[in-house]
């Protein structure tokens, strides 16, 4: 059976309202599709994924209790793609978004979300307003079900917002969220994401962020759960002096696969982008990093930096790393680097010779490997939450 005749695709087409043709044409990407070469979707192809049933407040409350979440700020909770009104409140400063956001073409996670989309956050932070911290919790619970939340977040000029974005759940499901983000002039969105889906879940997230002049999209993604997870970010720096941070940590064990894919598009002069991604792999875990930086001819004086590093704790673990720089401007500063390594025996021996048991010594070195990526989360409180979440 080809993946185009797969039960998954048929079920998606049947559920989609008027988008069946697009889905049928796209099909489920096979490994022959370059963007999905290292992240095969075979594991989802044979299931006829159904729309997830609404969750009770009790179920959602029980799932929430397992998570490490901020205790301050506003919180919005979705259960199986539906807003949990009783558990949700938006920050006072935000209002409904009205802007239309352009759809992404040619990216499977986006196509699937467009076809099956469920209304998610739809917010606008007014000009010059700091909306503080908003925690977004997306929970899934079910067997062979899928959710496809569509979030729109617009920051007007000079606005700011910190979004703590947590995905988790129980059972076998696909969570396929999409974020359409607009960062206005001089506005700042800090997007800290924690992906801790069920170990039998699949997570296919797509973020599209357009950043205006002197605006900043500052993101950090912790990819730690799911049987298969891809977090994909497409950031466009479309006006001068725009800035993007697309950082992340992936922690992969068992037979799981976590993938961080990004495209940072410098489409205007004087932009800067920073990316540090660290992946720790144990057992037969697989990690994928695909990081493209595209610098248009007009994007002179672009300042780009990309570093991705993997730590292999097992001989069966695997990392596929694909940095890609495509530069058409001639006056730019772009550097990138990639390393793959194991724990250093000398460092391990040094710690153990001081009485520190081997397992604890390994933990210390793994954390040391991750620390310079984690330190890029400027907010100390959120950094602590991330650390606690990582070890919970």
């Amino acid at each position, binding site marked *: 059976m080809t993946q185009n005749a797969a039960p998954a695709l048929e079920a998606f087409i049947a559920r989609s309202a008027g988008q069946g043709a697009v889905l049928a044409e796209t099909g489920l990407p096979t490994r022959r599709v370059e963007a999905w070469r290292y992240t095969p979707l075979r594991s989802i192809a044979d299931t006829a994924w159904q729309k997830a049933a609404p969750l009770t407040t009790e179920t959602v409350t029980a799932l929430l209790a397992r998570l490490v979440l901020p205790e301050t700020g506003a919180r919005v909770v979705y259960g199986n793609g539906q807003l949990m009104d009783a558990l949700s409140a938006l920050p006072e400063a935000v209002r409904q978004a009205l802007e239309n956001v352009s759809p992404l073409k040619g990216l499977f996670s986006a196509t699937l979300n467009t076809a099956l989309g469920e209304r998610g956050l739809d917010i606008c932070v007014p000009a010059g307003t700091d909306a503080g911290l908003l925690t977004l919790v997306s929970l899934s619970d079910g067997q062979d079900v899928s959710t496809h939340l569509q979030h729109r977040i617009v920051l007007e000029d000079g606005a700011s917002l910190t979004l703590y974005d947590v995905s988790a759940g129980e059972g076998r499901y696909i969570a396929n969220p999409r974020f359409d983000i607009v960062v206005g002039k001089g506005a700042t969105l800090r997007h800290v994401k924690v992906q801790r889906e069920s170990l039998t879940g699949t997570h296919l997230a797509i973020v599209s962020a357009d950043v205006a002049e002197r605006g900043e999209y500052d993101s950090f993604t912790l990819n730690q759960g799911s049987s298969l997870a891809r977090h994909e970010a497409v950031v466009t720096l479309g006006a001068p002096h725009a800035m993007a941070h697309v950082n992340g940590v992936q922690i992969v064990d068992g037979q799981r696969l976590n993938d961080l894919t990004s495209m940072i598009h410098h489409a205007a002069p004087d932009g800067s982008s920073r990316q540090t991604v660290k992946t720790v792999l144990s057992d037969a875990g697989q990690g994928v990093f695909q990081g493209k930086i595209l610098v248009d001819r007009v994007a002179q004086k672009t300042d780009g930096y990309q570093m991705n590093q993997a730590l292999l704790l097992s001989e069966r673990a695997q990392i596929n790393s694909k940095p890609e720089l495509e530069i058409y401007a001639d006056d730019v500063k772009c550097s990138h680097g990639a390393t793959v390594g194991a724990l250093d*025996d*000398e*460092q391990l*021996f*040094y*710690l*153990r*010779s*001081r*009485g*520190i*048991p*081997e397992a*604890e*010594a390994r933990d*210390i*070195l793994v*954390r*040391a*490997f*991750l*620390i*310079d990526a984690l330190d890029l989360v400027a907010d100390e409180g959120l950094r602590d939450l991330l650390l606690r979440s990582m070890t919970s």
Partner: protein
Amino acid sequence: MSDFLKIQGLQARIDADGTPKDILKGLDLEVPKGEIHAIMGPNGSGKSTLSYVLAGRDDYEVTGGSATFKGQDLLALEPEERAALGLFLAFQSPVELPGVNNANFLRTAVNAVRRARGEAELDAVAFLKAVRAETKHLSMSDDMLKRAVNVGFSGGEKKRNEVLQMRLLQPSFAILDETDSGLDIDALRIVAEGVNSLRSPDFSALVITHHQRLLDYIVPDRVHVMAHGRIIHSGGPDIAKTLEKQGYTQFLEAAA
């Protein structure tokens, strides 16, 4: 009570690019409780290997002989168990640990050892008090506690940090591997004072050195001459002076 540290016929080798290379070839050595011994020997005699084998580094393969410490089979223990039992190795080249905060490292080590010895762990306040007392004694800045372990430390600072660890972990037997490390006088003094300050009937040390200089500061009870993976001569502290004047030749010839 002579069974403090006892090494008999110890043989060890290392894998050198696929071919095993014998380094220790039947080494005998005893260090009684409360004594400080020195090992001197030319380059390549196996001095550093001895220190690593005793501390438990697993890239050396022990192929024969035995080493007991306080009556226990030292070679059967994990490195952390040896540390808990009271053995401490001051590294010739202390390892840098980027991303590991020095104060956190020290506290983790102290509490791991205390836990293993059945003592109560130190809380943050008690630890800070203990460490401050030591850093003051060693003229170390607080800044060194905030930095990553040994990263960007000068040679002297690394030695101070080793001595700080030694004093905090309170070993009953310390091995100081100073071979060929080109220590300046300041660093020598730091190490020497660190050892001398611990001198007591319950503390022993094995000072491994290439130079007689260090032994001006730490006066050993006994000196052993090591060559070709064995102890070839043992005697009083005067041997060090003889070596300084006449070199190793006479000992090597006598042993041949």
